[in-house]
């Protein structure tokens, strides 16, 4: 228990120090307010429009979560196909890699054209950015099953489905969760980028605040987006701990 408290408390120290420094720099006039607002000003703007920020936060959270869930489902399915079919792997994996290198900011306007303004575009953006780590890590996990355990299953006359569900998938869980952990942060980034274009959620707030030169609101939105990313990461970390507690 004491260790858990320490683990939470230690990262808070630099955060508190940096916040205090930023507050001092801003109040002393060392950094102009139009470049960086005082943290107290950011919190004030969060309090002033708590309803608007809450709505935007929930919209981004819903889009990112849906994008991440889709990434998990589609990514896992795709990884299974790539694992079991060498032909398909050799045919499609280079495109999966290519897909990963295309910047989402370049695709986002296309998504608006295809899917219109609103949630579908944001979810699609979140999905596109976050699916690759799930595929890559899942393929790695599924293909690195201990050869001795595979032989054991062969000796036990296990069917391909039994080998998949009772050996390959459970064996790959650490790698799959590792992929989801990376994808969690990316899903939020993808959603924010989608919202920049389609104009909703925290991304929409950032864009609007930028146009109004309300840098305090930009910082407040960024803070909430970061919190959302941390929330996803923590959720996946706890799930990982539960699933792997006996290994």
């Amino acid at each position: 228990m004491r260790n858990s408290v320490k683990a939470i408390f230690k990262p808070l120290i630099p955060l508190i120090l940096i916040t205090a420094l930023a507050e001092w720099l801003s109040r002393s006039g060392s950094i102009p307010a139009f470049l960086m607002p005082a943290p107290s000003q950011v919190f004030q703007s969060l309090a002033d429009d708590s309803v608007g920020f809450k709505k935007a936060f929930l919209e981004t959270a819903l889009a990112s979560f849906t994008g991440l869930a889709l990434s998990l489902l589609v990514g896992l399915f795709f990884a299974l196909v790539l694992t079991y079919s060498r032909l398909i792997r050799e045919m499609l994996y280079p495109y999966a890699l290519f897909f990963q290198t295309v910047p989402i900011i370049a695709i986002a306007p296309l998504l608006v054209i295809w899917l219109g303004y609103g949630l579908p575009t944001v979810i699609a953006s979140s999905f596109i950015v976050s699916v690759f780590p799930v595929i890559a890590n899942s393929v790695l996990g599924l293909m690195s099953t201990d050869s001795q355990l595979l032989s054991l299953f062969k000796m036990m006359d296990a069917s391909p489905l039994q080998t998949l569900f009772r050996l390959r998938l459970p064996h790959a869980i650490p790698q799959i969760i590792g992929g989801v952990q990376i994808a969690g942060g990316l899903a939020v980034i993808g959603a924010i980028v989608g919202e920049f274009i389609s104009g909703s959620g925290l991304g929409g707030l950032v864009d609007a605040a930028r146009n109004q030169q309300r840098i305090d609101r930009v910082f407040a939105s960024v803070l909430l987006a970061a919190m959302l990313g941390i929330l996803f990461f923590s959720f996946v970390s706890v799930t990982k701990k539960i699933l792997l507690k006996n290994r």
Partner: protein
Amino acid sequence: MSIELRGLQKLYAGSNVGLGTTDLDIPASQWISIIGPSGCGKTTLLKLIAGLEQPSAGAVTNPLSRKEMSYVFQDSALLPWKSVIENIILPLILRGVSLTDAENDAQDWIRKLKLEKFVNHYPSQLSGGLKMRVSVARALITKPQLILMDEPFAALDEPIRIELGLELRELWKSLKPTIVFVTHSITEALWLSDRILVLQGQPGRIALDRTQTFGDDRPLSLRGSPEFQKNVEECFQLLRANG
């Protein structure tokens, strides 16, 4: 029903290790031990009998199906996400036996292999000796007619090796499966088995094939007898001469 190996050979491209041309008959209920230096093809021979590898030449005539065989791996090969009991009953579950029936079947083996206190433990919580007991229990729960064991005691301390050897010998006496047992230990091979094969060279060939005359009861004291020591010396000299 015996297992027959005729002109069996397994060679790996770009390597000397593997199994040279081998002819062998393994009668039912015999405990046969295979000893020899690393790379002489002991594990390859085991995998060929199991059908886990395909021979480069020759054939294995094994009348048994996979369901009638078990394989015990060197490092126990337990599923780390399953408890002791779940690991033991795995072969039965894969055969469609209900969980209740499988757990009932497992109780006998848990008792015989002294695992009562550890049924709900996970492999990460077990010592090497306990893991191997679980592995042996899993191999025996299906009552196989053939058990292939690949250096099962290699990672264990001598007292645990002896204890497990005694337990395994007792189990063999009551069930009489055919056992093909790969080991690096001459003493272990002579003490536990009915027949010794010494493999030599790369690729490996049978340099010695001897049926033991010690009888079914193998107390620990047998290892100190002059005849036993003479056999140890002979195998040792053979391995040293060809090593």
